[in-house]
């Protein structure tokens, strides 16, 4: 199936507090969106390590620290910055702000294929378990 991309209007900017993240389910992806003050950044809401909810992590500059075991994910590239022997990364999503809303661009035709970037390790099976983490849809 051919993959298509679309910008989705997600939420009011005030719903994501400064220097915090929130998880949102958009088109089959659980996306963690972070408010960095001057911009919003988004990554898949699962740590490449053991699937921890990145949206619940502490933000440090443009990185987030997973609350489970402290892996640090660069929000601009998705790469893990403090595990040199584990060169894995989370998926990133383009974001923009418009009229007080946060928009995220997601692919939707075949989301599971797209849940990680090429070269990254993550299985579709793990992806499904995300629904439990983020709570009700």
């Amino acid at each position, binding site marked *: 199936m051919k993959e298509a991309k*679309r910008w*989705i*209007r*997600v*939420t009011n900017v*005030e*719903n*994501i*507090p*400064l*220097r*915090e993240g*929130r*998880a*949102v*389910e*958009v*088109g089959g992806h659980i996306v963690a969106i972070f408010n960095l003050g001057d911009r919003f950044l988004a990554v898949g809401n699962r740590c490449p390590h*053991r*699937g*921890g*909810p990145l949206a*619940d*992590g*502490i*933000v*440090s*500059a443009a990185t987030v*620290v997973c*609350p*489970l075991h*402290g892996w*640090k994910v660069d929000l601009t590239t998705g790469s893990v910055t403090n595990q040199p022997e584990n060169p894995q990364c989370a998926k990133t999503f383009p974001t923009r702000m418009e009229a007080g*809303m946060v928009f995220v661009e*997601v692919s*939707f*035709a075949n989301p599971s294929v797209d849940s990680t970037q090429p070269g990254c390790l993550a299985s579709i099976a793990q992806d499904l*378990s995300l629904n*439990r*983490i*983020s*709570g*009700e*849809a």
Partner: protein
Amino acid sequence: MNKLVVVGNGMAGVGCVEQILKHASKFAITIFGEETHVNYNRILLSSVLAGEKAADGISLNSLEWYEQNQIELRLGVRITDIDADRKTITGDDGSITPFDKLLLATGSNPLIPPIEGVKKDAVYVFRNLDDTRALLDRTRKGLKAVVIGGGLLGLEAARGLQVQGCDVTVVHLMDRLMERQLDLIGGGYLKSKMECLGMKVLLEKNTTAILGNGKVEGIAFKDGSSIEAEIVVIAAGIRPNVELGRKAGLQVNRAIVVNDYMETSHPDIFAVGECVEHKGICYGLVAPLLEQGKVLAATISGNKGPRYEGSVTAAKLKIMGVDVFSAGDFSEGASGTDVVRYEDAALGVYKKLTLRDGKLAGAILVGDTADSHRYMDWLRAQTDLSSQRRQLLFPAPVEDTGLDIAEMPDTKVVCGCMGVTKGAIIEAILQRGVNTLAQLKECARASTGCGSCTEHCQELLKAVVPEFQEDTEKFLCKCVPFSEEQLREILRSQRLRSVQEVLDIYGNGHGCEVCKPALSYMMDMLWCGDHDEDRSARFINDRVHANIQKDGTFSVVPRMRGGVTSAKELRCIADVAKKYRVPMVKITGSQRIDLLGVKKSDLPKIWADLGMPSGQAYTKGVRMVKTCVGTDFCRFGVQDSTRAGIELERRLEHLYSPHKVKMGAVGCPRNCAEATVKDIGLIGQDGTWQVVVGGAAGKKVRKADLLITVESMEEALQAATLFFQYYRENANYLERTYDFVERVGIGKVRRDTVYAPLAVQQGLRERLRKSKRLARDAWLEGDEPRHPTQFVQIEPLEQINQ
């Protein structure tokens, strides 16, 4: 017993008394101090102004010390007169005190130049703790401050004011800053360094008037120009305080004249410190004053012999990033003076040595003071440098730092401020079991002055102590390069009330997962909720008051004081477990019930349904008190441990601490609730309670130390809460009580808590009370979330319709 009266409670006077005590003196000692503080380290006033230290953090002698040495301390009394014939002194409170021996250590007063308008309100001097406090109260961001005087004190004051946010200008009469310590070139380097820090420096400006009608608006100079100012700090030098010397009829020139034995012209009156003149010289730095004190102590206690022969003076500027050192005579004019010079304008490094007869006469170091100790030794020992002439500025690199220390003779002074030699430090280590820098400071006084010898002391400890323990005073993290102790002082003195503010002013602006939660804790501990609580700086558990699990769900543990519950509570918990399909219900090791696998969005509903307070099982705070059944049913119980445990939990619940605090209370020494391996334990015995602290039964197993044994339950609770607050205020973040107690030592913990002077205990209690008054059950946030999406799952505004 002979009565020794000391006028002056400063570093020179008390330093001398410390030496007198070493002579096993038979004096009844009374010390009068005009200020209302115990003896403190005047050198560090600039650190207080700069917020690096708290006002009470620079005390040198505690009230306890005076008590222990049976010294009568009379604070806030100014001595106004001396009757040298009758041997009495008169205080401004009307008291007349007789003496057998009198020691004058009256120090000096700030020199106020003849400037019109110096009596205005916003004109300050910078000489004592009260001046410093007054300045701190006045400063604010953007305040235009002018410091008159570009000497050591003026520059340090200027930097302190600048750190407080003031817009600072230094005005100096001479053609260079610190002209007594620097030549023209060195002064130039210093000026550009001060300007780099962001302050303005005006040289060769003779201030004639402070302008403004009532308040300060500016200052005017002799050349007709003027600048704006809202406050003025005068730091134009000091004048020996010799009024009493004159009244006693002593020989006084510029200051009270003393001979090599530190005797004045009256056989029973002695003088020491900044108020004396020896061979025509008055000293204003701490090291000579302490040298004088040693000699005088020998003289006054009947061991006359040691002579004071003058000191080689050295000065060091204490401004972070502006290294300046100067010692001896650096003038170049005299014939037979050789000058060795090194300059790197781009690096801002300037070094100059003057030599006479092949020996070092003086040294100036700006921008790099690493070699200052070596030059001081050469000056003091008058070392013949002919053979080292080619390596004066650049010694052959020492390969092993231990070697350097090993080569040092025992007589070498390591701590110049306190005059502590290498030999004295080694003796303290070997004879008195000193293991850490903190102990070395307490025991031998080394490194308690300006602190520049800290590294040498550390090296000595490393070399001599078999199992050297690095002091745990480390930087919190690289985002905010200060120790936690420093940060607590900074927060307190600068009244910083948000984590982001601390990061912006003292750190890299963004912080990380290490420093943000630590700073958040400090905020809460210091301001007890009266601060800007920034949830983004908190770990997720403290954002939603539940413990995150491996799958991203949370666990819920309601408070069950002392592990005692009821049918009603249990029914309620059962209903909740069923209603929210809680995957696991478990009895914890701490006598409570854990509901595991709860979704974030269900948390507020569950809390509301439970109607029980948070058990804080997710946070660094008060966990619980585990109890045994005590006297109610147990046939062995001798104390009501259940009631004690419930009461202890009630007094401390909802409070946060550097790490989790697990407690236990047992009714007899059988110890069924394992109180001896808890952070705080109460152990009931027949007729008494033992309070134990610092136990552990986790990764590490440690038997708790006995804090105190008391008779009543109330006393036990008091001791436990006292320790709790002490731990809260002094432990580093994430330092469990068992690490804290081991680091500090149970002896010090006792001295600072249950055996501390009453005022100290009351201070701890009062601060705990204040925190407790403002502390609230975190689960109440379920009804009033701090943010609309704190618990709520965000739904996207649109979905993809496939």
